């Protein structure tokens, strides 16, 4: 990436295929692009359930909870996916168990678990100051620094999550839409809820290196919200949302290359821009139709 930001922007402005393909010369970009598309699709898919189950806060909380595990895996020199993974699943199980106790309430339970876990990470960092770069990667993502073996691990995790979500999709839909009747119809809603939280924790784990713990929740929330503007059918939502997630991931990667801005932030801002455009169109449409109705 020898060219300056302005030189790269100039290349982008020319819109010539050769210049648009120039980022592919770099292996780190190719790996990053693949990771962004995969994480975008995965977060977009599971995000449909996250949004419809009103669990956005759980996604946000789990990503922060993983931070404690990430820090611990760094100081113990253990594999990130094993250390942070165990931590994430444990946090997910804890959140699930506490949120079922009516007197606490799900939001408070998540707050207790995730902030405690995040605080453990911060406390360890304040003691060991030697790994600031790794911590920055965990916080804000380091998509361009993803190693080939990390990419393989992420791909394997994503495939397992996709497969399990596909297998339980009907029961998950029933338990999401109408949990009371689903339970009466013999669906183990408790088990489904638990499995879903585990899959969510695994998704957050797979996405952390790409998006960072601070931005991963946005990748799970914005694509399904955009998809809801485009369809009223649940089965279509499960197709459109991951496509939007993948497209925003790819577009964000290209823009971040040319703008020389953080990739994770650019991916989220790309998705947010699409959301703002669609919302504006909807508002204008509604105003136009209400004016037409008055006239």
């Amino acid at each position, binding site marked *: 990436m020898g060219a300056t930001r302005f030189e790269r922007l100039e290349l982008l402005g020319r819109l010539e295929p050769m210049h648009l393909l120039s980022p592919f010369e770099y292996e780190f970009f190719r790996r990053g692009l693949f990771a962004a598309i995969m994480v975008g699709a995965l977060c977009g898919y599971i995000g449909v359930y996250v949004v419809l189950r009103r669990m956005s806060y759980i996604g946000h909380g789990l990503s922060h909870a993983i931070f404690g595990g990430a820090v611990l895996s760094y100081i113990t020199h253990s594999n990130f996916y094993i250390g942070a993974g165990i931590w994430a699943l444990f946090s997910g199980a804890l959140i699930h168990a506490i949120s079922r106790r009516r007197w606490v309430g799900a939001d408070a339970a998540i707050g207790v678990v995730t902030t405690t876990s995040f605080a453990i990470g911060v406390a360890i960092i304040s003691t060991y100051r030697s790994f600031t770069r790794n911590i920055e990667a965990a916080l804000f993502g380091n998509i361009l620094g993803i190693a080939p073996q990390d990419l393989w691990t992420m791909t394997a995790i994503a495939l397992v999550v996709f497969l399990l979500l596909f*297998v339980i999709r009907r029961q998950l839909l029933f338990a999401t839409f109408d949990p009371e009747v689903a339970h*009466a119809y013999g669906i183990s809603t408790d088990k489904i809820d638990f499995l879903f939280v585990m899959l969510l924790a695994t998704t957050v784990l797979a996405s952390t290196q790409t998006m960072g713990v601070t931005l991963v929740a946005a990748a799970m929330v914005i694509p399904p919200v955009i998809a809801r503007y485009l369809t009223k059918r649940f089965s279509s*939502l499960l197709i459109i949302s991951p496509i939007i997630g993948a497209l925003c991931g790819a577009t964000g990667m290209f823009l971040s290359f040319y703008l020389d801005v953080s990739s994770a932030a650019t991916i989220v801002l790309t998705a947010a821009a699409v959301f703002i455009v669609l919302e504006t169109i909807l508002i204008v449409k509604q105003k136009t139709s209400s004016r037409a109705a008055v006239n």
Partner: protein
Amino acid sequence: MNSHNHPHSHVHGSLHPHGVEEPVAPKVGATPLVNITDVSSGYAGSPAIEDVSLKIWPGQFVAVVGPNGGGKTTLLRTMLGAVPLMRGRVTIRGEAVRGSALERVGYVPQLETIDWNFPITVEEVLLMGLFRKNHWLKRIKKDDLKKIDALLDRLNLAGLGKRHIRELSGGQQQAVFLGRALLGDPDLILLDEPTAGLDIRSRDDVIHFLHEINHQGVAIVITAHDLNWVAAHLPWVVCLNRRVVAEGRPQEVFTSAVLQETYRGDMVVFLHDGMIMIGERPHA
């Protein structure tokens, strides 16, 4: 069906549309479909219903009436095994309420509990009725889709399968959720306030359809608030205010004394053109 309080124990009835009543006694030795014995149940250690004993017989059509907070929904949910029992026993076809005992029980919740902004179509709601239990790998077959199409026709919803559920009228919405319950080929359907919020025409459509299902041998238990509607259309009533106050045919149960005890309010009952009419007594 019986209770501690009612003299007409073990009597069940069916009603033809438009209030033509035809009480039928249960067969001697017949097993009740649902048998609730001395049940107290509720949430967080606090009973919502107490000492309730009822029997629902195959093919029976029953309305449960009572004040808000009187335990109507809890009674239905207790039959589904969804509310912890503090005392007593509930059986369906002689089995404890769990797993296989519930396989042929349909449940239609109050429409107000549905998230109408949920992105889901009529067809997708109906498909849920085919996925009872944890059949993870069960696939939708052509026969299933044919079943859905036939049901849409039967519910007068032909051509509306791809519509979002919010785009339907109140009566059509109720029909969709009733249709989902029917897909499990039930012999008992529990409906929580199926006429709440519906206009007169829609309520009429719903009761006609319920009678049609009932005449095919499906037992139906509904909760309702409109006593005049219940008196006009249903053959058997249970008055519930945490405990069973009375049960029987509307003309026997709907008396000022029973309604006073059930609702803790002054109500007048009179006959008009052979129909029972219930009204609030105006304050002096």
